[in-house]
């Protein structure tokens, strides 16, 4: 309990900053929807979008999305939330695994009468709790922001499925960050390598959107495990739910095994 309390307290400040950012993104973002139906000159917004190069649409998560519809517009915002959640998840994962080593406080905590696995387990639990809380806030803010728009359209299920998909994907990156931070010998490079994988996955997601048939790429980019075209129709790909959960479990289990053997220095 003592470690959990300290971890939650230590994570609180950064968490508040992320929540403020999330609030601004969702509320400011959703208020722009009222101007989306038509752009200046009365042209259809989708027609304007189609004139953009496809790579630009891919970077902004707009491929295959009807931005004039409420679920389609929300899908774009949710894509940005997903990116934020992944970045936050990586940060939390790295901190849970190796912050004590980086800050050289490991000689304090790991000479207390607790097993290494217990300390790591509590740290992972505290950080993951922060990530879940972030996504709960995302869900609540989204419901409120859509309600404020007062369009009369109900997209609660879409919002819920998006929250689930964001949780799954960000948890996968969280687990990857924990794992890489532990297995890489130079602990300060854990964040760097995880960020490189994050960027590669992001670029792969763009490439996937550019290609007509990119099924092979989809497997290696978690950003495309749950696609907007399915989620806006309230469909969640069950296969990738399993993939996310299984990969996260394997990465975390392996993290505990490796951490037990790691030299702390």
């Amino acid at each position: 309990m003592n470690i959990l309390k300290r971890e939650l307290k230590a994570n609180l400040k950064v968490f508040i900053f992320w929540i403020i950012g999330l609030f601004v993104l969702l509320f400011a973002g959703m208020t722009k929807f009222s101007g989306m139906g038509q752009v200046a000159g009365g042209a259809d917004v989708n027609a304007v979008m189609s004139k953009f190069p496809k790579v630009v649409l891919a970077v902004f998560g707009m491929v295959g999305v009807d931005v004039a519809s409420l679920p389609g517009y929300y899908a774009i915002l949710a894509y940005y939330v997903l990116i934020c959640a992944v970045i936050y998840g990586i940060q939390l994962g790295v901190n849970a695994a190796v912050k004590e080593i980086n800050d050289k406080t490991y000689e304090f905590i790991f000479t207390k009468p607790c097993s290494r696995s217990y300390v790591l387990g509590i740290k992972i639990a505290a950080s993951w709790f922060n990530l879940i809380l972030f996504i709960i806030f995302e869900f609540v803010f989204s419901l409120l922001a859509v309600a404020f728009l007062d369009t009369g359209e109900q997209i609660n299920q879409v919002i819920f499925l998006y929250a689930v998909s964001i949780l799954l994907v960000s948890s996968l990156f969280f687990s990857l960050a924990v794992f890489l931070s532990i297995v890489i010998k130079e602990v300060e490079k854990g964040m760097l390598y995880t960020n490189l994988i994050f960027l590669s996955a992001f670029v792969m997601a763009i490439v996937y959107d550019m290609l007509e048939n990119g099924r092979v790429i989809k497997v290696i980019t978690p950003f495309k495990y749950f696609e907007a075209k399915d989620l806006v129709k309230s469909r969640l790909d069950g296969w990738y739910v399993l993939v996310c959960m299984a990969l996260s479990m394997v990465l975390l289990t392996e993290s505990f095994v490796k951490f037990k053997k790691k030299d702390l220095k």
Partner: protein
Amino acid sequence: MNAIETKKLTKSYGKSRGIMDIDLEVKEGEIFGFIGPNGAGKSTTIRTLLGLIHKDSGEAKIFGMDCEGEREKILKETGYLPSEVFYYENMKAIDLLRYSASFYKKDCSKKIKELADALGLDLNKKIEDMSLGNKKKVGIVQGLLHSPRLIILDEPTSGLDPLMQQTFFELIQEENKRGATVLFSSHILSEVQKICDRVAIIKDGRLIQTQKISELQDNSYKKITFHVKDNPLDEFQLKGATNIEIKGQTVRFIYRGDCNLLLEKINNYPLLNVDISEPSLEEIFMHYYSDKNK
């Protein structure tokens, strides 16, 4: 029973660093000095004992328990002061100490207060605003607050002023009277000599010698330097003198033996100046090595 026992303990970090075949026996209730220059392997040995790093081979036991297999049981009975103290941001000393105490199933508040009073430590100050010496004091309280059976101190006096060092030695001696065993690691021979019963000397990852402090003092080494008037010296010889260096009118050597014989010998020269001092640890090591190579 031995408080600490290692047999052929080896840990390698690469080609030249680490420890090799360390055989250490620290008896329960003694204050044991562990001495060697920086980088000799003192901290590596300690970290292996505490399970922070894993041995490559050999055995390491504390109170008869295996340092890796029964780590948690050992740590319940152990207090550790690292050579450099790093604590969490935004924590007051009292918060850190309470957090530390929460890992042991006993009330440590009285002991925290006693130790803080003895060291003159302000418990309500944030650790990040403290000087190195005060951070070290927090470390000392943190290592002793649960009245451990074994106290491991890694370079504990760095950052403490001489007066505070004296207070610290008294605290350690009190803990020892209470029954605690102390492993005191340092690179300063004189401070180890002050409070330790026995001392082990480590260099380049190998244990050179384990000696009683009383024996070390009986056979204490002296560094002798003398300058003669007028003509430079060609040679100098004396039983017990090693590492002899003659440069013009100056003679330097390390001496172990009868002081009367030494004074008698150098009194034969037309002296300008004589300096008899305690050799540095490095110089003692050099001496050990030259003894060993003979």
